[in-house]
């Protein structure tokens, strides 16, 4: 009896080994990597989009992988080096130059030209341009705008319907909103991150608002240590050391609740995902949370960035890879993905999609898009940004003056550009 059972199992396994490859042989396998692994997005993709895609594309065997943002660059680099890169992968627009300059990704201009609704993407298609060629299909975006608490504005006599529009107004509001009690900073008027990649993002907004820029026109020299850049960094440093509206402590909020919802912070620069976090984990507070339009000084500018899909140059099934990209950048897919992440859709036709129409804060993000500006698209950007992070941090901690810090960063940046 046992012997027969074993024989039957062996036969079944043999049949399975022979039959499965045979069944899959007429299907083209496409590996698709999503960046990030928030549960709402994974659920939306796995439960809604993938079954829909498979039903519409029975000849494609789609395998979707969700890679956390922190591991994405490393995993992609090693998979490219090992010759097992995914056919299609998601990344931020700032990664375009790195992949394009090392010839890892396929230019999409020919494919995009044949798209009947490419115009719907407007200027967001330019987010993934490198030396005149388009490499990225944008899927979702975000921007850095000022988030504030309307109830706390009222409490200190500020009009919550007139948020700060200039640097001076921002400083005045921050000073009024700050609460110190016996040497303890109980409420930060304006929280400014002092470590990691965020300080250069905030400073970049101020730099551009002040008429400055990161590099000269042909990207051969750093010019961010211009008087405009120094003034922008001085503004940040003064908020910490002179106006004392914030400090350099690492503010984490409480659990999943962001610090603006716990009342520890009255204003901060936030992305749409932060709205989603407050709405999810502190829904009572969310009605008091507002988003201000981009600040202005010489110009009204804010940092916006889009993430999207790239096609690997090494993909053996480019037509199928493009069909996959077409589906996941369709209005339906973008609406599903953006809805799950509460992010900004790159398609103009989705600017009033339901979750945005219902949320005044997200509408402000959409309205701010004409003032959007992206990070420089050069292969050396990540390294130069990290150099800037280190020196901006030094200025924020008072270890260097803003001019010394930016001059030193520019010197190191120039060496990286030469390399």
């Amino acid at each position, binding site marked *: 009896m046992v012997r027969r059972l074993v024989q039957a199992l062996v036969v079944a396994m043999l049949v399975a080994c022979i039959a499965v490859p045979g069944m899959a042989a007429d299907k083209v396998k496409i590996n698709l990597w999503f960046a990030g692994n928030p549960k709402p997005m994974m659920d939306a993709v796995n439960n809604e989009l993938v079954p829909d895609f498979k039903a519409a594309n029975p000849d494609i065997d789609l395998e979707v992988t969700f890679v956390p943002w922190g591991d994405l660059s490393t995993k992609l680099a090693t998979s490219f080096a090992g010759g097992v890169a995914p056919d299609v992968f998601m990344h931020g627009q700032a990664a375009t130059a790195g992949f394009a300059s090392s010839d890892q990704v396929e230019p999409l201009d020919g494919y995009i030209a044949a798209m009947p609704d490419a115009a719907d993407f407007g200027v967001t298609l330019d987010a993934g341009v490198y030396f005149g060629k388009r490499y990225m299909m944008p899927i979702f975006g975000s921007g850095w705008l000022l988030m504030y608490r309307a109830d706390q504005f009222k409490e200190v006599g500020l009009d919550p319907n007139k948020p700060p529009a200039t640097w001076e107004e921002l400083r005045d509001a921050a000073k009024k909103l700050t609460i110190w009690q016996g040497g303890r900073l109980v409420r930060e008027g304006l929280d400014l991150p002092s470590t990691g990649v965020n300080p250069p993002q905030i400073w970049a907004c101020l730099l551009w608002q002040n008429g400055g820029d990161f590099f000269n026109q042909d990207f051969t020299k750093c010019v961010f240590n211009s008087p405009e850049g120094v003034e922008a960094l001085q503004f940040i440093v003064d908020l910490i050391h002179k106006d004392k509206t914030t400090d350099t402590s690492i503010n*984490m909020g409480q659990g999943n609740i962001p610090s603006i919802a716990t009342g520890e912070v009255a204003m901060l620069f936030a992305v749409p995902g932060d709205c989603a976090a407050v709405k999810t984990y502190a829904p009572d507070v969310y009605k008091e949370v507002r988003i201000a339009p981009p600040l202005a000084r010489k110009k009204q500018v804010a940092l916006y960035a889009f993430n999207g899909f790239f096609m690997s140059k090494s993909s053996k099934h480019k037509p199928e890879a493009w069909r996959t990209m077409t589906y996941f950048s369709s209005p339906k897919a973008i609406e599903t993905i953006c809805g799950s992440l509460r992010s900004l859709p790159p398609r103009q036709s989705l600017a009033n999609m339901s979750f945005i129409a219902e949320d005044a804060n997200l509408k402000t993000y959409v309205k701010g898009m004409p003032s959007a500006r992206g990070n420089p698209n050069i292969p050396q950007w*990540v390294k130069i940004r990290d150099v800037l992070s280190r020196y901006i941090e030094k200025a924020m901690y008072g270890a260097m003056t803003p001019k010394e810090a930016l001059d030193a960063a520019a010197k190191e940046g120039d060496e990286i550009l030469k390399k």
Partner: protein
Amino acid sequence: MSASHSVSSYWKNRARRHTMLMGYLFVAPMALYVLIVHFIPIASSLYLSFTDYNILTAPKWVGVANYVKLLFRDDLFRRAMRNTAQYALEVLPLNIAISLALALLVNRATRGIVIFRTLFYLPVVTSIIAVSMIWLWLYEPRSGLINLILGKLGVGPVNWLGSPALALHSLVLMRVWRGVGWNMVIYLAGLQGIPQYLYEAAEIDGASGLGKFRYITWPMLKPVTYYIIVMGLISTFQTFGEVYAMTGGGPLDSTTTVAFLVYQRAFQYFEMGEASAVAFLLFGVILVLSLVNIRYFQTRLD
């Protein structure tokens, strides 16, 4: 006679050869594993340390340029070396003192002592990332438990991880808390190996508790302490997880350790050549420190 001798030697040699062959066969899987998983990657890494390599393009031979840059022109590397040495020098003595004290405390046949031993050992088996997340909350400047308690006592708030002067010490505290359980177990084993008659003889001679510790326990535990120092040096010089999870090397590079620098250069900037050179310099430092320890302790133990 001679023929029978040669026949017997033939069979003996054949048996020996067979035994040797079997021995090699048994060793082969592990030897292959060590060769493939350890030696080849180490040799490759040594080669890469003399190249400029970004994963995507072929390595370019640059000789000792990476080492020269790191040793003479790289402020961050020197800072990382200093931070790592300071970290090790703070962690090790604290760890040894506390783990020995705990081992002495739990080295008794009291009822329920196993519970205490387990509790002290528990942090060791907890993932470093989980521990780091818990300590991030404890250290949170405004709502963290430590500052809340200090606040009740009228102290603080202390900017544990946000202050360049304090951040490394804060990581040391966490590392000591996590590591004492492991060394406590090793000391406990050492304590239980000390012959009881030594203590009985000392008691007859009228030795005090402190005297017994000074003249019996501590000298008898020297081999264990030597082991703990060598292993502790190796592990503290490789500190990465808590830095990655809690401070990202900041603020102002005050918590950037050499292992974290290897990660940054290799997996953030894809400078594999430079990262390999950092790794080999770290290996050199650990090797020298271990050799010094071995010589010093061997002399003392002899």
